[in-house]
């Protein structure tokens, strides 16, 4: 059996505050296997985004270990963690964070260029991805010329650009209306069906209900002792 795509072992994350440390994630263990489609839901402030940041090597746990493809991420330097994020993990944000001065296609090309993909290959991959998310005709539009749903689809295409094994999404429908949000969920289902492991953080129970594996968080812990 292959190693989990990402595994958190007894992870704790606390933030120092003037009034004393605030613990966002407490002694949490979780294993995301290849092919998983996981939703993590819970009320605001329960620590789900912090957990996602730890799983995505964006943040480091105060305590515990994080294994990415069996490698302890805690032993890696900033550059190596960046390399993991660039090649193995795709990120989708609530607020899209598309670069306003770049077109949709250029936004999708950006992580590929950073990874050193040849221009011809990345153009082909970008066209393929924009077609995949249904925005081939909007390739040369800037983010300000796209609707919220379109912008998020471009963001998903960007997250998939370097063929990551794991796609992490933090409240991807938080800025969208219900119908558009459903389209985005449908897109995640398709991405998962095509072989990418997907973890979505959401506080929307309807979205959480559509994933095969559902985790709930409260006060920094997974409910029911889920792993």
């Amino acid at each position, binding site marked *: 059996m292959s190693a989990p795509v990402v595994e958190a072992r007894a992870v704790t994350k606390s933030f120092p505050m003037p009034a004393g440390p605030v613990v966002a994630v407490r002694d949490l263990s979780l294993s995301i296997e290849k092919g998983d489609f996981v939703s993590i839901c819970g009320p605001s402030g329960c620590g789900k*985004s*912090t957990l996602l*940041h730890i799983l*995505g090597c*964006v*943040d480091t746990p105060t305590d515990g270990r994080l294994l990415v493809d069996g490698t302890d991420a805690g032993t890696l330097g*900033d*550059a190596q963690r*960046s*390399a*993991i*994020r*660039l*090649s193995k*993990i795709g*990120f989708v*944000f*609530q*607020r899209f*964070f598309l*670069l*306003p*001065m*770049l077109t949709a296609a250029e936004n999708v090309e*950006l*992580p590929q*260029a*950073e*990874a050193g993909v040849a221009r011809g290959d990345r153009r082909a991959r970008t066209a393929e991805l924009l077609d995949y998310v249904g925005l081939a005709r909007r390739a040369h539009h800037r983010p300000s010329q796209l609707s919220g749903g379109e912008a998020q689809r471009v963001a998903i295409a*960007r*997250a998939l650009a*370097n063929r990551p094994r794991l796609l992490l999404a*933090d*409240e991807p429908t*938080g800025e969208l209306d219900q119908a558009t949000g459903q389209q985005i969920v449908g897109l995640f289902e398709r991405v998962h069906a095509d072989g990418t492991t997907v973890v979505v953080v959401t506080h929307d129970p309807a979205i959480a209900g559509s994933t095969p594996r559902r985790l709930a968080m409260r006060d920094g812990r997974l409910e029911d002792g889920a792993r």
Partner: protein
Amino acid sequence: MSPKVWAFAGRSLVRQPGRATLGVLGVAAVGALLFDMLLLSRGLLVSFRALLDSAGFDVRVMAADVPLITRPRLAGRTAAVAALRALPEVAEVVPIEFGGATADGTDGRRLEVLLIGADVDSGRRPWILLEGADRDPGGAGPPALIVNRNLAARRRLGPGSEVTLRGDCSRDPVSAPPLRFRVIGVATFPFDDPGSTTAATGTAALRRVCGFDDRDEADLLLVASREGQGAMAVVQAIRARRPDLHPFSNEEVVARFQQIGFSYFRQISTVLSSITLFFAFLLIAVLLTVSVNQRFAEIAALRALGFTRRRVVLDVLAQSVILVGAGGLVSLPLGFALARRLEAILHAMPEIPAAMHFFAFEPRALGIHALLLAVTAVLAALYPMRLVAGLPIAATLRAEVVT
């Protein structure tokens, strides 16, 4: 830095064209001033050196080690000239005397003339001949005179014409009668200011018109070194042979000039260079810091997508270099135009030779300009680079969602 870093930084700047344009214009304005100050800091020295070298004499011999304007006259001229000519390092020696005269005009007005007495032979001359000849053919006629363009124009003189000069050499009371001269040539005298009227003749004629007695003196000896010897070899040889004389190579004269002459301009150029650089630093640092502050979330997202810390830091540095580089390029034509304007203003100063320039271009000024601007670009980027390098990705993303 790879081309993709430059391209990305360029796109980031173009995103706010107004701000980027102001940054470039600001750097261009201060860069132009900086460039001019660099030209000014050595302009007088460079052009003074060029003036000294222009006549082909590389050593000046005086009676004392004192500033040029207060120097005493050199006694025992004949012996000194003979001693110097006998040195194997010396190619040529020309004794020079200065005097003054007034030229009578047809309109009855007198024109003040700076009279140079120089006994030149077949070699170099302390002037550049433009028209006619500059060797006195001799004969029984009036002594030969070479005039500058101003004098030629104001008294309608040219080769073949004659002019009467009255000695006005304040060194001694005037007692000599006016003397008629025959103009044989028109020449440019390197140290003439734009309005000066200058003429040169032999030292004997100068003494006659000035009413000097037969003192065997000179104001200055111009010495040219023999090819391959160099000025310093001549200076050392003269010091060894005639310790009573004070020889100075052009290099030494320039060094002395640098020490006391027009040091005001070097000071103002240093002060203004520092201020302009600080100004450029402040402008770029503020622009980049505000820009980075406004893009924190975006930079955090890029980091989350896999951009390394080094990569986002280099992006800020590249933006600074592009802003300063573009401004620096624009500053060069602006600087040249401004230098011409400032040169015109400063040249109205009295007694500044026409061939001397306050703003003289040297390739090294371009190099220093580029270097100073490059250092400014890096320094200005340091603080925003530090902000970006220390940006906590998760906390920034979280803060963005909360706000």
